[in-house]
């Protein structure tokens, strides 16, 4: 139990009869920025609520800083939570929303003022102090929710999709801000997102969740390069996943003889950039084409189902409806062990 700040032990979380999270084991290191990544409804918010103490676990234990807090009320945990729904106080001004927690703690008035102003400045809302939360845009409300938690300087900060409503530039700014905060204050952060690029960019470690189960835990590099199964692979951008069986590549839609022998019945995965376009033994019809700056992305309708491929933007474009040759190079395939059907 060296430097683990939060430990979840066989945590089971349920709403009445429906189990939302099954036997979750997780250790979060002090000062770490951990991302919970997964599709909608996989139990991310539920996990955060349990750590914060808003949801009593059906089974298992929660430790924070070495102490068993499984039955500790939320107000005693020193945990900050930025709600996915913001949960701003509608009867208080922007400033008073931020000052709320400091007032409960009976901080001296000058300190409340100074710290609340500083927190509002951090999220770029210094000009909005006297407004009502209802008079803010969605992104501004989200930043207010962030400021309200930041001002308390919690040891553990839980962020439930805190950047989902921000435009690209603000999102980058807030990301940088979170990273600066982590470095300067050593706060431990858990950060929920269903955006894989955000998790990869920001997190020290990522937990990929599916249907209430932590499927894979690892550094962004591990998750990105060595996904453990088809689900994780699909989530981190391996858009083409096929199964290799008896010398045949198969999918739910068809199969193709590759003329090669590979042992086992593994799944093979390629990112769009790894598909060779313009030459190769297979053919597909272009049914989608989109320009993405550096490259063009194509969707091909093939005997193996839909294949996603990329070509450099300066290569001559393929037209929708045309036939294109392509190859799924076996040498580049990522093997996903033990998941073949």
């Amino acid at each position: 139990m060296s430097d683990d700040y939060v430990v979840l032990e066989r945590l089971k979380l349920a709403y009445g009869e429906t189990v939302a999270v099954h036997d979750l084991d997780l250790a979060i290191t002090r000062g770490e920025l951990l991302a919970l990544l997964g599709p909608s409804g996989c139990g991310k918010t539920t996990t955060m609520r349990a750590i914060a103490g808003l949801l009593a676990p059906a089974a298992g234990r929660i430790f924070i800083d070495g102490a068993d807090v499984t039955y500790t009320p939320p107000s005693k945990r020193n945990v900050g939570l930025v709600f996915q729904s913001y949960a701003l106080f509608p009867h208080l001004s922007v400033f008073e929303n931020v000052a709320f927690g400091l007032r409960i703690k009976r901080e001296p008035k000058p300190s409340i003022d100074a710290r609340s102003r500083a927190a509002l400045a951090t999220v770029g809302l210094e000009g909005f102090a006297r407004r009502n939360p209802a008079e803010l845009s969605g992104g501004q409300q989200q930043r207010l929710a962030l400021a309200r938690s930041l001002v308390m300087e919690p040891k553990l900060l839980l962020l439930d999709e805190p950047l989902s409503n921000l435009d690209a530039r603000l999102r980058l700014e807030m990301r940088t801000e979170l990273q600066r905060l982590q470095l300067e204050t050593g706060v431990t952060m858990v950060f929920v997102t269903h955006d894989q690029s955000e998790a990869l960019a920001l997190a020290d470690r990522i937990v990929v969740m599916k249907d209430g189960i932590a499927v894979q835990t690892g550094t962004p590099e591990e998750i990105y390069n060595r996904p453990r199964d088809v689900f994780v692979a699909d989530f981190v951008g391996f858009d083409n996943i096929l199964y290799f069986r008896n010398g045949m590549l198969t999918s739910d839609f068809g199969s193709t003889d590759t003329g090669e022998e590979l042992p086992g019945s593994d799944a093979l995965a390629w990112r769009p950039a790894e598909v060779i376009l313009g030459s190769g033994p297979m053919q597909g019809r272009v049914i989608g084409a989109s320009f993405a700056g550096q490259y063009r992305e194509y969707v091909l309708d093939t005997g193996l189902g839909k294949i996603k491929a990329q070509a450099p933007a300066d290569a001559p474009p393929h037209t929708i409806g045309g036939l294109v040759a392509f190859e799924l190079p076996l040498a580049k395939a990522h093997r996903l062990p033990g998941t073949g059907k």
Partner: protein
Amino acid sequence: MKRNLWVARIVIFLTLAFLIGPFLIIIAAALSAGSSLAFPPQGFSLRWVIAVFEVKSFRASFGLSMFLAVFGTVASLILGVPAAYAVTRYRIPFGEAVRMAVAAPIIVPGIIVGLALLRYLVIPVGMTVTLALFLAHTALVLPYSVRVVSASLENLRPDIEEAAVLLGCSRFGAFARAVLPNIRGGILAAFILGFVTSFNQVPVSLFLSGPGVRTLPIDMLAYIEMTYDPSVAALSALLAFLSIAIVFAAERFLGLSRYV
């Protein structure tokens, strides 16, 4: 098309006439110079309006009615706000049954409630009439308190309480600081509705009167049996204006119609 329009106009006119007509007749009768309650009034004077303030029993019964309306409604809110909170926030066992029980006083005819209180509390136990009246009015107003406060609780997102708790509040502190300020309007609306309901209440209070203890409406009934002069009309008009003033103020400042 045109015929339908005429029918609609006639219906609207009749509705308004029946709603407002009696009120206008009462006012006219109150301003009569004659000495018996009559319409059309004989002459014009303010003597009966002034006379109202000189009837001693009216002063006492007005005091009692005010007391019942204020404290009965406050008591109903003290019971009703937690009840509304429990029914809207938690899936409590028999929640539906609780809702029904709380609504019972408006479903059971008031005259039965009054008779039952007299028969089983005042007579055998010796409970004072004032206390019985207080209990009856509290129960009578409770359904409105629960319903109006529930409505404003349902419009309030539950997560702000959790936010308050995470910012250091106790459960009760979170209710006081995050919930109460946001349902203040609903509570005031419930108070006004309860006040008016209690103040105008006749059937429940009918059996619950004793020597010198009568609510104002019952006192007016008694008065009219003895003396058939326009002062009752004057008092009615004054009370009607008081009610209208209260409801207008509520609509103006709180938007009462949102809650009812």
